[in-house]
């Protein structure tokens, strides 16, 4: 059974199996025999893998698993490959600027039809009391600027859309 795990923006495709006595995680780098046992603490587990034993605290969210281990906290994104194939996990694209957090548009520098160069300012937004200038991710032509000055936007709203690149 497959999962794609995302750690620090890097994706790794894995396959979990069971050989009759233990679980085996197949990663692109090799095979990891592993075992996870609860310790009794809330979210507490003992992980045995790759010949090491780690005490950890763990919580499973809808899209990511959070792990506290050796004094650090990690987020591990989980994607079901079947859902990705169905296009339901939304993918990044260099055609659009997506709001990294909710905020307000301070000013808009371009309009649909404008030709822009990579790095050229497209709009200025304010989020968490901080002004940020968003720039063109590549050379291209502006297709849509959905928000006007003063408009509020939500997390992951599309703030600017470039026309698809012609091959």
């Amino acid at each position: 059974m497959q999962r794609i795990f995302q750690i620090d923006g890097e994706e790794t495709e894995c396959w979990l199996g069971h050989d009759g006595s233990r679980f085996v995680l197949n990663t692109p780098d090799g095979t990891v025999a592993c075992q996870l046992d609860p310790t009794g603490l809330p979210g507490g587990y003992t992980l045995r893998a790759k010949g090491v034993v780690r005490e950890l605290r763990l919580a499973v969210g809808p899209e990511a698993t959070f792990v506290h281990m050796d004094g650090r906290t990690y987020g591990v994104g989980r994607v079901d490959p079947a859902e990705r194939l169905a296009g339901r996990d939304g993918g990044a694209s260099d055609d659009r600027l997506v709001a990294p957090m909710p905020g307000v548009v301070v000013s808009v520098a371009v309009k649909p039809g404008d030709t822009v160069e990579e790095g050229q300012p497209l709009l200025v937004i304010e989020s968490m009391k901080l002004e940020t200038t968003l720039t063109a991710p590549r050379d291209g032509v502006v297709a849509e600027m959905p928000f006007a000055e003063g408009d509020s936007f939500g997390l992951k709203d599309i703030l600017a859309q470039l026309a698809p690149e012609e091959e």
Partner: protein
Amino acid sequence: MTISKLLVANRGEIAARVLRTAKARGLATVVLRHVAEQEGPAHLIADEVAMIDGPTPVAAYLDISQIVAAAKKIGADAVHPGYGFLSENAGFVAALEEAGVTFVGPTSQAIDLMGDKVRARAFVEERGFPVAPSAIEDDDPATFVDRARAVGYPLLIKPSAGGGGKGMRVVREDSALETEIETARREGERYFGDGRLFVERYIESPRHIEVQVMGDGQGNVVHFWERECSIQRRFQKIIEETPSPALSPEQRQEICETAAGIARAVKYRGAGTVEFIYARDGAFYFLEMNTRLQVEHPVTEMVTGFDLVAEQLRIAAGEGLSAVQADIPQTGHSIELRICAEDATADFRPAIGDILLLDEPQGEGVRVDSGILDGGKVTTDFDPMLSKLIVHGRDRAQAIARARNAVQNYVILGVTTNTGYLDAILSHPDFASGDVSTGFLAEQSEMLTAPGEDVSDLLMAAAALSDDRLVSDVMQIPKMHRKMGGWRN
């Protein structure tokens, strides 16, 4: 004017912290809650909760008439403002006065004077206290740019009505001056409704050192020693400590007495903080005075043994200061870490999410002032600071060791926080030696956000084995096929 029922006009960790002291003093307590706000620790501590509403949660906490009406309705005879929100709003103080409710804080005149950076500087300078070279737009707007130029580079543009680093701009080259002035003006108008500016010489690699003061409003002022707050990112403090590792005993005496002198000059009432820029050559300049309890006040409590909120409540009730200067010790060393919902590896983008598991550290010399509950939700409605971790040790080395141990054992799962980043700062050799300036975080950003040891395999194994659907799918495969991994399509 005895106080019997206190409304805390704030939220999060500071509301909880103020409520604890108020209850210990036997007061009836009330706290605000916005209709769309998650339940927090403060709501569990307070005897009563007053609901407020507004176009946004923050707007509700800034709504003077609604909060004054809530205080009247619930029969509160005093209001503690916490920090932020209306804590330094002279109009709020005046409205409470009119309603016959005691404000736990300074007079509206002191807030007005110190809230206007320009007037505050002039006031301090006229009385012979040190300030950095500057130019003030209001003196003659037509020549402001030329006078700014004459101050010399690098210089710092600040909104006259500003605070917390908002709208502040460092300019190093003349070519950028006019654009930066316009940007700062825009930000000043938006954040503070006031686009007036001033500039001052930017002191390179300075330290930020501030002094806690407390006055009775009759001219009696004591100080509770200094706090070093040089660990800042974009003018926002991240780690604070006391004593400052930079000061000799003589310098400490001088800077603390200067602060007390400034507070005495305004016959200051209540808790305040005088902030200084401390240059590498040992010179220090008045920066501003904050007329409220500061976020970082707990480190002062840890080394002096005083409860500053209790002192505030005493003074507001007309009981005066509980101590004279000679009774205020500075024992051991204390460090505060601000735990924030943000992703240090993604330019400190605010993080949101559900708190799936919360286990806060405990132990000798460890204090947590928390604004979150297990199962709560972190949104961008409010500031990203979730809680404060404060430690005390017999000396700085022990305090650092305790801080590291505590932050490593601070379990918050479900929302990304800066605990790893804080630990990286604490483990940096320059922090250990105390040799830092306000530029430290920016200069060391690469090292401080560097990824640790690669434990991806362990993390993926943990994520896979705790994924119930994945595990049950695996176990449903007939035994002989289960280990046929790698077979795809």
